[in-house]
């Protein structure tokens, strides 16, 4: 992971996630700000895909960082192959699960991963740009079982390797790969009902 250049622009200092975490553990908030900036976009989009609302995604993003600060002493880079990124996404995934549990499964069943709720709907101008294929893909993803959907979303948004995703969701590597295989097969089946391909 490349880090942002610090004070001296001629000699950018590359700080790893683990170094920044150590600094944050020592009470240096600026290290946390750098980490937050590093992962904010992908984490927000991931949470957005999970809860279907920009507002909720921001709230869960904040809660994720509250958990990071509360459990900062528990982070052990040696025991986590995915490092800080995998740890962060695991916390975010747990927050999303907590949200699902608190909001009720019926709502989740209605909205799937939240991509077609009112709050999740794109802006009017964006909606015009939406293609039929995209809507079909969205519905296809909605129809996936929760555990398969989770692997698909984690893979896309976090960019973690499957071995790291398996660690995030707490399952064996082959289970995570199997879920992805089933998800791809299911999506192919749904998309083939229509002759046109997925949006490029």
């Amino acid at each position, binding site marked *: 992971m490349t880090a942002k250049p610090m004070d001296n622009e001629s000699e950018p200092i590359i700080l790893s996630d683990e170094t920044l975490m150590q600094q944050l553990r020592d*009470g*240096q*908030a600026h290290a*946390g*700000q750098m980490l*937050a*900036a590093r992962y*904010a*976009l992908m984490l*927000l*989009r991931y949470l*957005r*895909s999970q809860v279907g609302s*920009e507002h909720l*995604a*921001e709230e869960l*993003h*904040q809660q994720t*960082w*509250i958990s990071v*600060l509360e459990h900062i002493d528990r982070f052990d880079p040696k025991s986590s*192959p995915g490092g800080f990124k995998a740890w962060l996404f695991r916390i975010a995934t747990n927050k999303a699960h907590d949200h699902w549990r608190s909001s009720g499964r019926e709502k989740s069943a209605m909205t799937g991963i939240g*991509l077609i709720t009112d709050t*999740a709907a*794109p*802006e009017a101008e*964006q909606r015009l*740009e*939406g293609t039929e*294929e*995209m809507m079909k*893909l*969205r519905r296809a993803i909605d129809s996936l079982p929760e555990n398969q959907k989770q692997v*698909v979303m984690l*893979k*896309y*948004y976090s960019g973690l*390797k*499957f*071995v790291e995703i*398996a660690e995030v969701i707490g399952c064996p*590597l*082959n289970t995570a*790969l*199997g879920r*992805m*295989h089933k998800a*791809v*097969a299911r*999506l*192919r089946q749904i*998309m083939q009902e229509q002759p046109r*391909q*997925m*949006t*490029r």
Partner: protein
Amino acid sequence: MEHGKKIMSDESLLVAYAAGEVEGEELTQFEARLASDASLKQQATALSDDYAQLMNGLAAMDKRYRVDERRSLQQVDALLQQWEQEQAEAPAPISIQSWRPPRWAYAAAAMVALFVGFCYWWANNPPDNQVAETPTTEPTQEVAADNQNAPNSDNNLDAGPAPMPLAFEDNSSENSDRISALEQDVVALSNDQVSAKNSSNDIDQ
């Protein structure tokens, strides 16, 4: 695959291959299988295409949704500032580790406990030679008790009960004399009692 994890099934291997996560010897072996197995090769190609289409579709879908990264970062920054302030204001936590004695202290404490225990035992169990030199108090105690049990006897001992000798005092000769005198007194007393009993029997008869 990294981290020493082994992919067991072909399905899992195909997904990992499509995602570009099969590496090293495992990749070499799998590509050799693909070269020799047309069916597997076909599956791998199809899955790789579907996987790529899924990722492209998600990317296109994701672009349409706006997330306010800046606002979220401002919220997290405020959170971090507050946390830093709390950390600075909070008293330094007393580490449990600092209160833990070093390991050698446990061994030292155990040795001290053993030493104290030995001293206690030694004080209550002196060596044999010291016991041998110490005059026994049992006869003296018995004699004294006999004297106390017969306070109204006609042959009451004027001297009264003999003072108890202290244990471990080295006055064995004095005690021996005293014991001899007491034994003689006891014998005399017994004789007196026997004669007194005989005389009373004679009167009764």
